[in-house]
């Protein structure tokens, strides 16, 4: 009798658990305050603060929707089941541009170490910055300049990303970024230069936490799969497992890319004048004869 009840109840319990997982969203981050959960990890958070998070974006939208639909109590249960503490109740969302606070008692996130990210490993508290430079050089001795940029990048321990007829993209170790950029500028007449710095510390930590949570959920699902008696239950768990694994791989790819971009700064050199549509261009003087200057008109016999 007891066995019969147990057998009839087990699928219901299993299904409830799977539904619970689906409802809570596998990317739930127990380390976040309740109020900020959907914001900081949803589309609005990263879209505003980290433009490069586009690859993760679509996935997060799905996650946020399902997460919001799940009852708070259930989500907390899942979070606790995943081995993390429950979220503190009704904490205000952290202000923008601030690192997410890790609740007391929660396992501290590991130092921001992406595969192959030595920089991050050395100083876990230092900000993770992505340096990017765009340099427009005058169109003169193009091939020679492109060769020199490539050689310069390789000599500094960097590598070539892409090379086209008048454009080259290289990555150099971030600690040698300033030096490499100064050398690039000496290769020709600099028409325009843009240097941007992006702080991805917060995104990096977010990703780490989400990855850890997903790994816990994945392990739980694998255990459930082993225990599943019925095919229909196994299929439901497998489907969820596939979704979690896919999301996990995407997040791991993203964190690996961030690590690479932090470790190596990107320098793009274009041998072309800045686009005439660019804001901040110098005003064109109202003297038409200036437009007729140049080799094209002179050499056209």
């Amino acid at each position, binding site marked *: 009798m007891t066995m019969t009840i147990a057998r009839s109840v087990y699928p219901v319990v299993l299904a409830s658990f799977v539904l619970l997982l689906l409802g809570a969203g596998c990317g739930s981050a127990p380390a976040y305050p309740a109020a900020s959960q959907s914001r900081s990890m949803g589309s609005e958070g990263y879209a505003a603060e980290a433009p490069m998070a586009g690859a993760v974006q679509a996935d997060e939208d799905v996650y946020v929707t399902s997460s919001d639909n799940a009852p708070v109590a259930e989500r907390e249960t899942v979070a606790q089941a995943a081995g993390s503490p429950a979220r503190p109740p009704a904490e205000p969302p952290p202000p923008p541009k601030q690192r997410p606070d890790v609740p007391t008692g929660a396992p501290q996130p590991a130092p921001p170490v992406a595969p192959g990210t030595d920089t991050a490993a050395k100083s876990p508290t230092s900000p993770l910055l992505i340096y990017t430079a765009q340099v427009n*050089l*005058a*169109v*003169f*001795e*193009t*091939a020679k300049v492109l060769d020199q940029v490539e050689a310069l990048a390789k000599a500094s321990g960097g590598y070539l990303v892409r090379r086209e007829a008048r454009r080259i993209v290289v990555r150099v170790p971030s600690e040698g970024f300033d030096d490499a950029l100064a050398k690039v500028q000496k290769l*020709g*007449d600099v*028409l325009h230069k843009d240097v941007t710095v992006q702080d991805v510390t917060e995104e990096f930590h977010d990703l780490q936490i989400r990855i850890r949570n997903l790994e816990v959920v994945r392990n739980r699902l694998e255990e459930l799969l082993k225990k599943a008696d019925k095919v229909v239950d196994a299929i439901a768990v497998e489907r969820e497992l596939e979704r979690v694994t896919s999301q996990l791989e995407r997040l791991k790819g993203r964190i690996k890319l961030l690590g690479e971009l932090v470790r190596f700064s990107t320098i793009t050199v274009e*041998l*072309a*004048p*800045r686009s*005439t549509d660019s804001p901040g*261009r*110098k005003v*064109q*003087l109202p*003297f038409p*004869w*200036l*437009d*007729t*200057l*140049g*080799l*094209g*008109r*002179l*050499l056209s*016999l």
Partner: protein
Amino acid sequence: MKSLSLVLAFAFLTGCGHSFEAATPVGFVELEDQTLHDYRATTADGLVIAVRELDHEPEGSEDFWARAIENQLRDRGGYALIGSQEVQSKSGQKGKQMRFGHDESGTPHVYVVTLFVTKDTLYVMEFGGTKELVERHKDQLDWAIQNFRIK
């Protein structure tokens, strides 16, 4: 009245309509019927020298016009400013010379613009060709500048 018309026609036919005299270096031939330029000459290899005479309107300093030319060529044309220097013709006319580099069809070219500014007129002398040709004929450019004369 008739005699005046004849004088003007003669002046037009003999090219006396210009307020300058450009000396054609050895190895160059002067081209007729120019529209954009008031004087243009070329070598058989395609090295070209030309002069334009423009009304100095509105009036600006030599630095202003030199800067306008530099901005135009660098910002809009993507020319590299290789260098600039003061020049002077034998007649005492001082000017400003700017050397630009630019790739045309994948080949490095050099474009030299020399500017002479008077109260009423701007004289823009252009000299251009492949980098190799310009470097080889540099002396002829210097000669043309030294023998440039404003009437």
